[in-house]
């Protein structure tokens, strides 16, 4: 081992139903190492600090540029993408754990498929007439595009769900991410046309009313998406829709 090393204390779990445990690994310190490249180092030599040869740590990672959202983990108690956590920002031994609001598949790999189900439930798409050539889309003002773009970068990584106190084993709250997508669709000239159906989903079980306004989501979002703006706006729109439905029926 070179003089300087980095210690990682990793929470492991062999199967979805087995008991978790911690194991410590020590890898050579390189300033441009990040948590994923250190996990890759462990794969090449899966030996714990105590000298025990073990199965390499299982983890999800793909783009390694913080645009795919795959490698989201809890590092020193804070949820984030592991690829952009550089070694030189760790300052001492680091604890790496899987997210807690999703079922563990194995070790640091969690199953976030419920987030994609939420997108389905919210009908988060623009229902175009068809893919054949129908000419250009509607004009969009540059400031609308700039603001919409903030929301369209959402990677469905799950940080906002992990940090949300309203999301736990006895709540059905869908979290900020999907509300952000409903908001995004409500900004687009074509998306607006089907706003009602999306608001319907937001008024149902686990919808926007379950938000407790803790504002943790906006704190942890790796893309600085103004999620609380979306929650406030979608909340307002559902109220208006509720009143309208009440009197128009």
């Amino acid at each position, binding site marked *: 081992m070179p003089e300087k090393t980095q210690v990682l204390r990793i929470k492991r779990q062999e199967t979805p139903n087995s008991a978790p445990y911690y194991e410590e690994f020590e890898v050579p310190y390189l300033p*441009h190492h990040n948590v994923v490249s250190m996990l890759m180092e462990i794969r090449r030599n899966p030996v714990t600090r105590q000298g025990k040869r073990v199965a390499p740590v299982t983890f999800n990672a793909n*783009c*390694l540029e913080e645009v*795919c959202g795959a490698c989201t983990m809890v590092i020193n108690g804070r949820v984030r993408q592991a690829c952009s956590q550089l070694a030189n920002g760790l300052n001492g031994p680091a604890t790496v754990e899987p997210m807690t609001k999703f079922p563990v*598949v194995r070790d640091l790999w969690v199953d976030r498929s419920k987030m*994609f189900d939420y997108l389905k439930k919210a009908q988060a*798409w623009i229902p175009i007439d068809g*893919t054949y050539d129908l000419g250009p889309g509607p004009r969009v003002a540059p400031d609308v595009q700039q603001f*919409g773009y903030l929301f369209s970068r959402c990677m469905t990584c799950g940080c906002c769900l992990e940090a949300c106190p309203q999301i736990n084993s006895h709540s059905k709250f869908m979290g900020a991410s999907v509300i952000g997508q409903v908001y995004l669709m409500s900004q687009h000239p074509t998306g607006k046309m089907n706003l009602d159906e999306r608001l319907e989903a937001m008024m149902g079980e686990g919808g926007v009313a379950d938000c407790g306004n803790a504002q943790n989501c906006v704190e942890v979002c790796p893309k600085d998406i103004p999620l609380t703006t979306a929650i406030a706006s979608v909340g307002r729109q559902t109220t208006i829709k509720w009143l309208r439905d009440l009197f128009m029926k």
Partner: protein
Amino acid sequence: MPGHHIIVGGGLAGLTAAMKLAEHGEQVDLFSIVPVKRSHSVCAQGGINGAVNTKGEGDSPMIHFDDTIYGGDFLAHQPPVKAMCEAAPAIIYLFDRMGVMFNRTPEGLLDFRRFGGTKHHRTAFAGATTGQQLLYALDEQVRRYEAAGQVRKFEGWEMLSIVQDESGSCRGIVAIDTRSLEMRAFPADTTMVATGGPGLVYGRSTQSLVCTGSAVSACYQAGATYANGEMVQVHPTAMQGEDKNRLISESIRGEGGRIWTYRDGKPWYFLEDMYPAYGNLVPRDIATRAIHKVVFEMKLGVDGNPVVYLDVSHLDPAELQRKVAGVLEIYEKFAGQDPRKVPMKIFPAAHYSMGGLWVDYSQQTNIPGLFAAGECDFQYHGANRLGANSLLSCIHAGIIAAAPMIGYAKSQKSAASSQIYDQELARQRESFDKLFKMSGPENAFAVWREMGEIMTENVTVVRYNDKLKATDNKLLEFKERWGRIGLNDKSKWANEEVLFVRQLWNMIELARPITLGALNRNESRGAHYKPDFPERDDANFMKTTMAAWSSDGPRFSWEPVDVSLIKPRPRRYDIEKSAA
């Protein structure tokens, strides 16, 4: 009755094909190792080309076509490239209608920027995460069909092999659930692989961790022809990392970024000096070779290291924020320096494979019923791809494959016998049983790293025949060493190591047509450069390299290039194209 199709890969090409097929009422099973929304297409930054000509520059699909053929050094068949360039404006409009947050002009129209290898503003963009934005739009449309029951997603499943009937036609696939390691055979009328590039053959490249080329290699080993494997693009501007090389998009130069290094104590803007007509926007192969020369031959790397500067510190920060913030953020996050103030340190890195599975003009491989689209096909980029043409070719190939896939499905008269599925499944089960018994001293991930280093050193920017031969011998050695791998993880649940060991074998198999294809091509063309054969040799090498797998190594044949539309001419970027 609707046809039943399998698509392997959920990036731009796969999702486009899925959307098209579903729109026609067909049934689609979509397989992807990662949730489709996390596919490698998200890494494409700069934009998508289409000659919409909103800047009054007289651009047209024919000029786009000429730029692409010229940029690809006359190795691409011309008719399909022409069709792609003609389709491009409508493709951009389609994604505009799907809600992509493309950057806008003050009037609310689509904005376009410049990219390498052209003189026109032809690249539509959504900030500097255009691939991500296009992928998400497709993800949404496919989710719509998924909710309607027309698309079944198998996320977390990996394709192991194709299933072929007695006549050799493809009748489906065998895939494995990466969690439970359950293997199943999936019958289908047609199968499309849209699994992207083989970047991991080079160890660290700009590609994502799923880009092993393993599924393509499985098709190649089953008899699919691998074409122009030697044509691998090395992107001039990337950050070197321990885990991957992160791309710094060409859009940075499109927006005015300049490349330089110190010479005699003063900044030397060498691309502007060497190629006055195109400057920093020469095509990638040209820029990469220039950087290579400046660093290794002239020994002018910054501080003696193999890096040069990419500089945006002279540009307006507000404009940068609007147009390329995503790229600058990546640099800032991973280098810890603000590129708006300090020039970025960059170096070339393996980036994109122009080569891939041979397909006909309907995207069908030489195996009937097996289609390919996206980076994994060889069709659109010749010997060098122009920036912002990859998103276009992925989407275009996904679109045009749909009709022939439906036609092929209709022509299928009877279901295949269940026996062929049982046999292939048994073969795959047996091979996994063997993998689980591997107990040698080698570590699969360490072998992979070594292989990547050798491939990067010898089969990228500058190629010598003796080194290519030595590299192929090394690959044979790696095959032997592969047999001595020991599995650290014996678990039958979510075992990434055992899956990787199999992928590694496929990577070694695919590295051979890449390396030997380069050895055979004694000329310099596009990304393929041999100092011992510095000129393009149309008389002997204006032809497609076709590699067929055999147990004794790849067998090569060659196919003439269809140059019926644009007469080949020398490719130069130091002077205007009209003067070349």
